[in-house]
C-alpha cells in the first residue's frame, strides 16, 4: 500500500504534561530518523524493531528541541495500519509546534483533521462508528465530550446497534424461512409476538435518540442563557461576544432541539448561547420577559448569565430572578458601568453568592474578565452536564430515526392484519439503516442465519 506520510499533534493543544506528535505513512520511519538522534547518536529508527520505544532527542538543524520517547509501530499493526511513529514529548503548545514543524520539514505533510482515523478506516482497521467516534474525540471541545466519545470508541453504541440488528435478523430469518418452506414452518400467532419485539426495539431506539440530545451538549459546549429585564443590554453583550469571536462562530440554527442562536468559542471553551429569553427582542414587554421565562430558561441551561442595569436599583423582579439562580451555575453582570452607577458589586454580593462583574457593553470594559471567569469555571469543572454514554452524531441520529420509523410501520402492518411477508419490507429497512450506522454489510448474513437456525426441508 502506498500512502504519503502525514503528521500531526495527536494530543490536545493545552499546557499538559505530555504531548504526542504522530507520523503515519510509508515514510514515517525515514521522516522520524531525519529529526531523531539517539543518545549515542548511532541508533537509526528504520533499523529498530516494531513495537519498541526508543529514547533520544528531536533536533532541528542540529539543535536539540526536546528530549523524547519514540514509539515505533510498523503497519499493519498500528492504529492506521500504516507505519507509524509517535513522538512522546514534553507537552506545551510551543514545543509541540516546534517538533511538528521539524517533522514536516523532514518530509511529512500536515495531516488534515481526522486523517489518521480516515486512514485507519480506509485500511479496514476500524468500522464506521468507531471512526466517527474518533473524529468526535478530535473535535471534542471539552473533557465531557471526550468521555462520551471514548465510550463510543469502546463500542458501547456499536454493541447496542449490533444487538438490535441481531434481533431483527432473527425475525427476518424466521419469516423468510416460513416463506421458503411453508410446509415446515408456520407463522401462526407470530404477529403479536413480533409486536412485542418491535416495541422493545423502539424503546432502545428512543433511548439512543435521547442520548443524542445529551450527546450534543457534550460536543457543542455549554448551554448558556443570558437573562435579564429589557434594556439592560443583553443584545449588545451578545453582539460583543459574537463579534469578538466572529471567526470561529458557527451558526447551528435550525437543529431539531431548542434553537441555539449562536455558538461562541472563548479560549477553547464553547458556549451555546440559547435564544430562550428573548435575547434579540429588546422591545419585549415586561410581562412576557418576567420571572417565569427566566425560570424556564435557567432550568435548561448549564450556565446563566444574568445581566443587570447598573444605573437602576434592583426591584422585586430582580430579587426573584436572583433567587432562582441560587441553585445554578451563574454569573451576574452589572452593565452600563460607563454611566452613572447606582449598583455596585458590593451592593448585591449580600443578595447572591455568584461572581459579579462590572461591564460596559459600550466601551468594552470587563469583557475580558467575563471570558476569563467563564473559562476558569469550565476548567475547574464547575460546569457540569449529565453523563449519558452514547454520544451519536447527526448522521447516526438520522439513521436511527429512519430505523424507528420503519419499526413503527412494522407495527402498523401487524395492526392492519397484513400478511407476514409485508413485515419483512420494513424490518429490512430498519435493519439496513442500523447497518449503515455501524458500517456493516447487509448481504449474505440473512441467508446464513436462515441456514444456521431453521430446518429447511425439500
Amino acid at each position, binding site marked *: 500500500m502506498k500512502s504519503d506520510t502525514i503528521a500531526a499533534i495527536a494530543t490536545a493543544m493545552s499546557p499538559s504534561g505530555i504531548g504526542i506528535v504522530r507520523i503515519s505513512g510509508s515514510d514515517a520511519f525515514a521522516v522520524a530518523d531525519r529529526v531523531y538522534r539517539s543518545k549515542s547518536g548511532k541508533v537509526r529508527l528504520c533499523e529498530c524493531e516494531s513495537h519498541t520505544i526508543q529514547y533520544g532527542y528531536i533536533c532541528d538543524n542540529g539543535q536539540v528541541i526536546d528530549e523524547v520517547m519514540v514509539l515505533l509501530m510498523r503497519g499493519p499493526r498500528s492504529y492506521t495500519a500504516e507505519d507509524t511513529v509517535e513522538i512522546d514529548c514534553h507537552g506545551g503548545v510551543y514545543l509541540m509546534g516546534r517538533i511538528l514543524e521539524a517533522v514536516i520539514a523532514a518530509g511529512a505533510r500536515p495531516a488534515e483533521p481526522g486523517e489518521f482515523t480516515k486512514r485507519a478506516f480506509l485500511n479496514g482497521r476500524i468500522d464506521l462508528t468507531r471512526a466517527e467516534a474518533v473524529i468526535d474525540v478530535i473535535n471534542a471541545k471539552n473533557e465531557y465530550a471526550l468521555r462520551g466519545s471514548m465510550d463510543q470508541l469502546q463500542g458501547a453504541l456499536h454493541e447496542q446497534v449490533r444487538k438490535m440488528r441481531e434481533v431483527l435478523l432473527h425475525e427476518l430469518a424466521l419469516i423468510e424461512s416460513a416463506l*421458503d418452506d411453508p410446509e415446515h414452518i408456520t407463522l401462526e400467532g407470530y404477529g403479536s409476538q413480533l409486536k412485542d419485539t418491535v416495541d422493545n426495539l423502539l424503546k432502545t431506539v428512543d433511548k439512543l435518540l435521547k442520548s443524542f440530545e445529551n450527546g450534543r451538549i457534550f460536543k457543542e459546549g455549554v448551554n448558556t442563557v443570558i437573562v435579564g429585564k429589557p434594556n439592560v443590554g443583553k443584545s449588545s453583550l451578545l453582539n460583543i461576544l459574537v463579534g469578538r469571536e466572529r471567526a470561529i462562530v458557527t451558526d447551528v440554527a435550525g437543529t431539531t432541539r431548542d434553537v441555539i442562536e449562536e455558538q461562541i468559542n472563548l479560549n477553547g471553551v464553547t458556549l451555546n448561547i440559547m435564544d430562550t429569553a428573548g435575547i434579540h427582542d429588546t422591545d419585549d414587554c415586561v410581562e412576557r420577559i418576567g420571572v417565569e421565562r427566566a425560570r424556564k430558561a435557567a432550568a435548561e441551561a448549564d450556565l446563566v448569565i444574568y445581566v443587570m442595569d447598573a444605573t437602576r436599583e434592583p426591584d422585586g423582579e430582580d430579587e426573584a430572578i436572583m433567587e432562582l439562580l441560587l441553585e445554578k451555575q451563574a454569573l451576574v453582570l452589572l452593565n452600563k458601568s460607563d454611566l452613572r452607577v447606582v449598583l455596585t458589586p458590593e451592593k448585591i454580593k449580600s443578595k447572591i453568592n455568584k461572581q459579579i462583574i462590572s461591564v460596559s457593553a459600550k466601551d468594552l470594559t470587563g469583557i475580558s474578565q467575563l471570558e476569563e471567569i467563564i473559562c476558569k469555571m469550565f476548567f475547574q469543572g464547575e460546569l457540569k452536564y449529565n453523563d449519558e454514554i452514547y454520544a451519536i452524531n447527526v448522521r447516526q441520529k438520522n439513521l436511527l430515526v429512519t430505523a424507528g420509523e420503519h419499526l413503527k410501520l412494522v407495527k402498523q402492518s401487524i395492526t392492519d392484519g397484513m*400478511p*407476514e*411477508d409485508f413485515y419483512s*419490507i420494513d424490518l429490512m429497512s430498519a435493519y439496513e439503516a442500523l447497518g449503515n450506522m455501524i458500517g456493516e454489510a447487509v448481504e449474505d448474513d440473512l441467508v446464513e442465519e*436462515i441456514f444456521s437456525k431453521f430446518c429447511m*426441508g*425439500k
Partner: protein
Amino acid sequence: MAAIEESYDVVVVGAGHAGCEAALACARLGMETIIFTVSIESIAMMPCNPNIGGSSKGHLVREIDALGGEMGKNIDKTFIQSKMLNRSKGPAVHSLRAQADKAAYTAEMRKTLQNTDHLTIRQAEVSEILTAEDLSGLGKTAWTEDARVAAVRTVSGAIYYCKAVILCTGTYLKARCLTGEMISNTGPNGLSAANYLTDSLVSHGIEVRRFKTGTPARIDRRSIDFSKMEEQRGDERVVPFSFTTNPDDVQIDQVSCWLTYTNERTHEIIRTNLDRSPIYAGIIEGTGPRYCPSIEDKVVKFADKDRHQIFVEPEGLDTNEMYIGGMSSSLPEDVQFEMYRTLPGLENAKIVRNAYAIEYDCIDACQLYASLEFKKMPGLFSGGQFNGSSGYEEAAGQGLIAGINASRKIMGKEPLILDRSQAYIGVLIDDLVTKKNREPYRMMTSRAEYRLILRQDNADLRLTKIGYEVGLIERERYDRVCEKERLIEEEIRRVKRVKLGASARVQALLEQYGSIALNTGVFLSELMRRPELDYEKLGPLDENRPNLPPDVREQVNILIKYEGYIERQVKQVEKFRRLEKKKLPVPYDYGTISGLRIEAQQKLNEFQPLNIGQAGRISGVTPADVSVLLVYLEQLKYLNRDLFNSLNEGIDNEVSV
C-alpha cells in the same frame, strides 16, 4: 479415416433444462445451433423431484416465460397437479408449483427441440473445447485468431466449428453415484458420466470444484397404504405458468400427493447406521446443499425435531413410481429398505430405485461475467448446475440468459444483464457470479431484496418488453402487454376517483365482510386497502366498473391495495440503482488504488466488477472498501476526466427498452 467436421454458430453441451433453453433461444434468434446430449432419451429429464416451480422457483419459470423461454409452456402441457403456494400470504410470495408427468415433460420438450428450425440434436459426448490457438495446433484453420472459443471435439474425434459454446453439463462431469458402500461412476439414473471434458477445461485455466446432491428412493405405488397418509390435492382453479396458456385449457383432472412423517424409529435406524453413510464416513468430498439436506443430515442437525414431513408424489400417469420427497439419502440399500418402511403407509414399501447421492464437477461461477461468459475464454458461456446452482428452474433461467448472450455476442450486441431489481433471474445470476457459494445454489424468496416488485403475477409486465427487444417474443404478445399496462393504469386512475358515500347499500356490503361502517364518504381505493376487502368484493358498489380481463383486475387490486409498501420498495430500488449506476472501469488494476486492503484488491482484480453495487456484493469486499472505491471514483472525476466520462458512455450492459 477423416473425422467428421461441421460448422455451427453455437454449440450447446448438454440437453437438460439449461441446455434446452439455451439451444432454443439461440435457434430462435436465428443461430445455427447444435445441442449435444449423452442420450436423446434424457432431454429435459427430471432426475430428482417431479415438480416444476415452488416457492421462488415458480417466479423463475414465469420470468423465463416472459422472456420467451420454454419451461412454462412445457409444464402447462404436462402437469398432473398444480398448486399456488403461500396463498394466505402476500402476493409477492405466491408461488406456483406443479407436479409434472416426468415422461411427458421430457417427451414434450424433445418434440419442441426437434421441431425448432436451425436446431440440430446430436447424441455424442463432447470431450474438448478448442480455441483458435488449439485449432491451429491441430493444423486446422479457425474463423477467429484470438484465444476465443472456435470449436468442440467429441470423444470420437469429430470437430464442430462454432462461434460460441454453451456448457450445460449438469451433474454429468466425472459424476459418481453413491448408495452406502456401493459406488458407481455414472451420471443420474445410471446414465453414463462425461469423463473427459473437465480435463480440457482445466487445461484452459478454468477452475473446477466438486459439489454433491442427492435424491430419495422411488417406491412402487401398489406397495403403499395411502389410508395412513394425508391427501394433498391440487387447486380447484389451476393457474397456468405461461402467460400464453389459456387458463381454461389447464383445468384438468388432477392427481393427489400424500403427506406422511418420519418418527423416532426412523431416526434411530439412521443414527445407528450413520457410519455407513458415505458423507459421514468421509467418502464424499463434494459439498452438498444445506437447504435440501439428506434425511441423515436432518436427523443429525435438527436432533430436537421428533418428526420430519415426507411428501409422497407421483412421477407420472403411466408409472407406478412414487417420489419420496424429503428423504434423500446416501445410506446403504439395506438401511434404506428398513428406514423407509418405518413410515406410516410405507410398512410394506417396495423400492423401485434406491436413493443415492451424486458428486460431480462444476465451477465457481465467479469465473463468469454476469452475461454468463467466461472471463478467461471469450465465446465460452455456461449455465445450470455446472455453474454451481441446483434445481431445474435455476438451470433453465441461466440457460436462457446464456443462450441469449451467446447469440448477442455473435451478433455484436451488448449482453443482456438483468439486475436484482428486475428479476429473480437477475438475483440468481448476480449471486452466482459475485458471491462465493460453497454449496449448490437454490433460489429462495429471501434472496430477492425487492420481491414485492418481483412478483410472479407481474413477470410479464416486467420482462415481456425485454424479451421482445431481444427477439424471443413476437410482436403480438408485446402489444398485448402494452395494452394490459394501459388498461391497468386507466383503471387505477378511475378507482382512485370513485367516491362512495355512507349509504345503506355501502354499509350493508361492509357489514357483510366484517368491515367497519363509514362515517363519511371515501374513495374506492381507500376501501380496497382494508385487509378484509379487495377490488372484487367491492364490485357491487362500483357502478361504472368496466369489463376487464382477470389479469388486469388482479394487477389493479395489488397495485392499489399494497401501494404504500410498493412505494417504499421502489425507494429501496432507487437507492440500489444509484450504486449500480456508478460504473467502474473494466478491466482495471485495483492494485493501483491505495487505501484498498490487499484482499479487496485481489478480489476486485479477480472479479472485475462492472459497477460499485456489484463490487460491494463480492465476498471479501467490505463496506470500507466500497467507500474507498467511491472516493476513488470521485477522484477520477477530477484527475482523469476522460476515463470517468468514458465509463458513463461506454459500458452500459442493459438492453434499452
